[in-house]
């Protein structure tokens, strides 16, 4: 993936400034790491919209304000509408050299905010929409969202004798967004932070709408240790359960096409939310993964 015109942002060149500091996210929160890097890459002249969800809840605690650049909370459903309004306002004021970014959870994106997002893409608003996916409505106590994976236990999909957690599978937000013919869409994971940074930088240079879907583990909701967030976010990619890809000019491109996958079992077994799964359930997860990869390898550009 190439980034044009600008210095490539990496561990050495990224700004020392922190724009998301002193926040109250749980220790080891993957979502907060995503927010931190989004704001660092986009820089000071950024308008950030966050709907109801963990990242707004942990950033705005009166009298404290943990965002150190311009940030505002939107209604839960209205992330992309507020972003569109800010973009229109900035245009009317003749502002130059700025970004409008929305950072919303999986519930805020795939469920309640989908309509506003669809409208913004349709209008080709010059905004960057980023979904941090912790696979449930975490801020209100771990309820199932449209992005909760098969088998995961949540408070609304408990695991018991009759039902083993979530019985549905994740909506494919990346392909839903791509189906709009969006200018740029990508998937990422906080476990591959340089790849994520490259994609944020690329989105910032797109003349139109861009969407990034970043995988962001949640120790509290997933029942995992606080120090394995990065490991899990790598492992989900290495197992093939999360695909790193881009969509541009009408074409899907796979960023990583591993010869073999890391064992799904290891990834699943270390998470409390999957504790009740039996071998046959894991086999079903592997089966679904393989079917998806076959379709991808047959129809997407590989690299």
């Amino acid at each position, binding site marked *: 993936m190439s980034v044009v015109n600008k210095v490539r942002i990496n561990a050495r060149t990224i700004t020392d400034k922190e724009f998301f500091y*002193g926040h109250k996210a749980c*220790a080891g929160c993957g979502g907060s*790491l995503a927010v931190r890097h989004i704001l660092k890459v986009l820089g000071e002249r950024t308008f950030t919209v966050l709907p109801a969800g963990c990242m707004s809840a942990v950033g705005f605690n009166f*009298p404290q304000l943990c965002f*150190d650049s311009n940030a505002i909370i939107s209604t839960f459903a209205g992330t992309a509408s507020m972003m569109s309004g800010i973009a229109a306002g900035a245009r009317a004021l003749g502002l130059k050299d700025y970004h409008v970014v929305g950072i919303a959870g999986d519930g805020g994106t795939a469920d309640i905010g989908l309509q506003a997002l669809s409208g913004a893409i349709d209008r080709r608003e010059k905004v960057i929409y980023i979904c941090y996916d912790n696979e449930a409505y975490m801020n209100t106590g771990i309820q199932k969202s449209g992005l909760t994976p098969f088998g995961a236990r949540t408070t609304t999909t408990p695991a018991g004798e009759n039902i083993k957690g979530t019985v549905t599978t994740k909506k494919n937000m990346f392909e839903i967004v791509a189906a709009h013919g969006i200018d740029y869409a990508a998937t990422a994971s906080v476990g591959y932070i340089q790849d994520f940074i490259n994609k944020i930088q690329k989105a910032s240079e797109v003349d139109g709408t861009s969407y990034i879907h970043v995988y962001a583990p949640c120790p509290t909701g997933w029942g995992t240790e606080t120090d394995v967030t990065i490991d899990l976010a790598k492992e989900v990619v290495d197992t093939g359960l999360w695909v790193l890809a881009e969509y541009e000019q009408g074409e899907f491109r796979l960023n990583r096409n591993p010869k073999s996958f890391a064992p799904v079992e290891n990834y699943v077994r270390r998470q409390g939310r999957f504790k009740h799964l039996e071998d046959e359930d894991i086999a079903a997860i592997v089966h679904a993964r393989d079917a998806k990869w076959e379709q991808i390898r047959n129809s997407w550009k590989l690299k």
Partner: protein
Amino acid sequence: MNRPALRKYVNPQYLSDLPEGPCYDAGHLVTVNAGWRTRKPVLDSEACTGCYICYMNCPEGVIFKSDGKVDIDYDFCKGCGICGNGCPKDAIVMIREGEA
């Protein structure tokens, strides 16, 4: 400073002490997070090679670059252990908070 500074919380006496909108200015920090820690990262600067993996992976942004190596702002470190777990040189070890 490259990050917002901690300031003292003053209980508002008059309406004029309150912000006009629903929040104070960006980066208005009045409480630390250090009290959340049960474990604490301890850095061995000799062993650190300055690869910045920990700097990139810290969700709090409390690891900062210092003379080609790194240092930690303990006021806001929550002790998650991501830095220690990911350091290829084992230059960060987690100890129980209160020990050493």
